[in-house]
């Protein structure tokens, strides 16, 4: 889901930075107001977790690979705004040091994986869990569904951004300048593989981490869960 350099034309990647700018500003305002110094090590742990979980590429045999992001369990633990900050940091380092995701695509990738994924996933989790007790089955299932929906929402936005490229940028003869596939290919391809496999991976990661944090009595201190 890390869009590389060259897949998005300037109109799109500049727009995506433009969309992210107020979101990043809002995040820093919210965190400025709410984040306590004592919570900062937990954010660092979350960054490490998201970084390492993305290294576990899961294959579709003979096909493509994908991975979890860990964004939904992070949002349950530290809230969606802190998650946005953490995933932004991870994506910037991945782009600059490891060539995973483009530098020009940082705005788009942060929008998909840092904003859409944790916010959609978190509010899905909140909606389904309602007022159920923290250690109820319903909470764990809500976390799993949040993971599944969050990752798929991010995949859908990624597919739309890629699929718009042939419409936005092409030569006089209609040859695409950037990502070549139209929406009719990108959406089924991206969404299909995430609905079938990678969404479940995020769901399992979210549920397993949630259950582990509960069992180790870690999550109960947290206001976001």
């Amino acid at each position, binding site marked *: *889901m*890390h*869009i*590389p*350099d*060259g*897949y998005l*034309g300037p109109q799109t990647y500049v727009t995506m930075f433009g969309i992210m700018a107020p979101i990043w500003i809002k995040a820093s305002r919210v*965190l*400025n*107001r709410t*984040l*306590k110094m004592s919570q*900062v*090590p*937990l*954010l*660092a*742990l*979350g*960054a*490490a*977790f998201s*970084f*390492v979980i993305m*290294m*576990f*590429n*899961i*294959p579709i*045999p*003979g*096909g*493509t*690979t*994908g*991975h979890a992001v860990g964004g939904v369990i992070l949002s349950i633990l530290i809230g969606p705004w802190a998650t946005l*900050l953490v995933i932004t*940091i991870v994506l910037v*380092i*991945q*782009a600059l*040091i*490891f*060539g*995973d995701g*483009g*530098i*020009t695509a940082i705005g788009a990738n942060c929008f998909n994986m840092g904003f859409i994924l944790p916010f959609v996933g978190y509010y899905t989790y909140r909606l389904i869990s309602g007022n159920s007790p923290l250690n109820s089955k319903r909470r764990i299932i809500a976390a799993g569904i949040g993971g599944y929906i969050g990752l798929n929402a991010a995949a859908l936005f*990624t597919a739309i951004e890629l699929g718009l490229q042939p419409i936005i940028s092409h030569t006089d003869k209609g*040859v695409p*300048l*950037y*990502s*070549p596939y139209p929406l009719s290919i*990108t959406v089924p*391809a*991206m969404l299909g593989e995430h609905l079938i496999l990678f969404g479940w991976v995020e769901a399992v990661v979210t549920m397993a981490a949630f259950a*582990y944090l509960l069992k180790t009595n*870690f999550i109960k201190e947290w206001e976001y869960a």
Partner: protein
Amino acid sequence: MHRLWKVIILLVILSPLGIIVPYLLNAGSAWGEWGPDEIKELIGYVPSGLEKLSDLGKPLFPDYNLKGWEEKPLTYQSIGYIVSGLVGILIVVGVTLLLGKVLSRR
């Protein structure tokens, strides 16, 4: 919280599974993350804008591996992967601690 950091270290040690299993099951790049060569195989040409932008980044650890180890056997790549994981985690943890301290209430 020590316990959770141990889990992270365990995950880093296990992380080469993230390249070994895809290799064994003959899986390629993630969808939409192909390099210019792979694109040419897929559609017969490399879009000109894509080609120009694609080598913009000069990553220190390309594809979570040590530079020059791209063609080495999977055992070496696994070591490169673990080293990359450790380096990456150190950096993201450092940056998060720094930004978190700046943003948090005193």
